[in-house]
């Protein structure tokens, strides 16, 4: 598998791969997200304690999962860019980060909309909320740093180092804010002894999550292709101006 992934490092081969995979990801996203959301928002049972407000979960939880998975992906791609110097890995991380930041923002906003009816407040400085907020800041730092250099590849390398430092730091942040304050409910889906929510809620949740993942994959492929084009345009313009001088 690592060999197969490395073969994608050639932009031309990636482009062929992208052409093949892109329609499928769009179709999957277009099928799964409406299906999961309709099921979750209209046909799944209301919670015995929270009533209909529990339906925020079908947007909130998949967004939060994607926010974390995407940061892991950014860090992984950045590390492989720093180790193997595959430009495409770095560019893919760069393309993924803004999407991840949007998922993080969605998780934060829907979480606070959910917090008002259930906890009685928009925002509390609880451990989970705080660590997602810090995750959002890490995304912002990465994006801002990558965009702050006149030389794109210089910014990319600096930001990659930051992404790797951030992912090492993330468990420490998580641990420290857990120690600091906790109100959010503990994990109830990803547990070793099986999920603690009923199948009638788990299914729409899983379908929406899969749809979000497909949507993310589609956006990622589109963004990587446009980033690659932007880099090529810049290289061409540099060559042209060098030729003119």
């Amino acid at each position, binding site marked *: 598998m690592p060999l197969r992934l490395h073969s994608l490092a050639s932009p031309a081969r990636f482009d062929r791969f992208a052409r093949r995979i892109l329609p499928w990801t769009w179709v999957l996203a277009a099928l799964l997200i409406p299906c999961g959301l309709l099921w979750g928002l209209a046909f799944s049972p209301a919670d015995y304690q929270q009533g209909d407000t529990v339906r925020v979960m079908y947007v909130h939880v998949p967004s939060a999962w994607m926010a974390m998975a995407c940061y892991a992906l950014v860090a992984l791609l950045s590390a492989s860019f720093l180790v193997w110097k595959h430009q495409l890995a770095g560019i893919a991380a760069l393309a993924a980060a803004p999407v991840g930041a949007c998922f993080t923002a969605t998780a934060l906003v829907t979480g606070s909309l959910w917090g008002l009816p259930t906890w009685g407040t928009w925002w509390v400085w609880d451990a989970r909320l705080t660590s997602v907020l810090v995750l959002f800041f890490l995304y912002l730092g990465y994006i*801002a*740093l990558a965009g702050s250099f006149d030389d794109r590849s*210089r910014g990319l390398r*600096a930001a990659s180092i*930051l992404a*790797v430092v951030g992912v*090492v*730091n993330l468990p420490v*942040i998580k641990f*420290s804010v857990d120690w600091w304050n906790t109100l959010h409910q503990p994990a109830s889906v990803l547990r070793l002894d099986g999920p603690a929510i009923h199948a009638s809620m788990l299914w729409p949740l899983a379908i929406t999550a899969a749809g979000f993942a497909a949507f993310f994959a589609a956006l990622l492929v589109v963004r990587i292709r446009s980033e690659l084009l932007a880099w090529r345009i810049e290289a061409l313009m540099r060559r042209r101006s060098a030729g003119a001088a």
Partner: protein
Amino acid sequence: MTGIGALVARDLALAVRRRGEAGLTLAFFVMAAAIFPFGVGPDPLLLGSIAAGVVWVTALLASTISLDHLFRGDLEDGSLEILVLDHRPLEGVVAAKCLAHWLATGLPVVALAPLMALLLNFDMDAWWVLVLSLAIGTPALSLAGSVGASLVLGARRGGALTGLVVLPLCLPVMVFGVGAVEAALAGRPVLPHILIEAAILVAGAPLALKASAAALRIAVE
């Protein structure tokens, strides 16, 4: 080792001679802490309850705003290139620069912290916990800061970007630093917080040095 000693001495001499560099940071710390009563009101009870956090946050901000000088001067006059090309490990060079940064900006803040705490109606029985937590925490702030300062070298926007990069990295050490003081005020054991804070410093130091060295190598290419 002599090289590292010389580097620390040079950076300290620069900090003293570039009048105000260390002094300005300290003045910022004092002023930023003193501005809080104007913001939240002069109620002694309220001030006393937020004093430890205010001192810690302003120490963090003071450390962050002084980061611009950490590598920029060396990059501009070319000495950074010589340091990178030198046979000595670059991580050691970064350690020396962080030590000098801490001696010039961190240590004065630690020394002045009890005074600021006093002005903010802090319960002075716990002054030594505040000083201890800052004494362990500020070197970690300098180390995390060196990562940010080296990453933004050559960037179009400096100051605000450094803050954006550095502040999330500093969060854990501040949580446990303030936690120690809060524990002391509530009569709970202080040691666990202090030990975890020290553990973050010890475990984070090699990572920060490594990351800063990698960033400096990119910066001088």
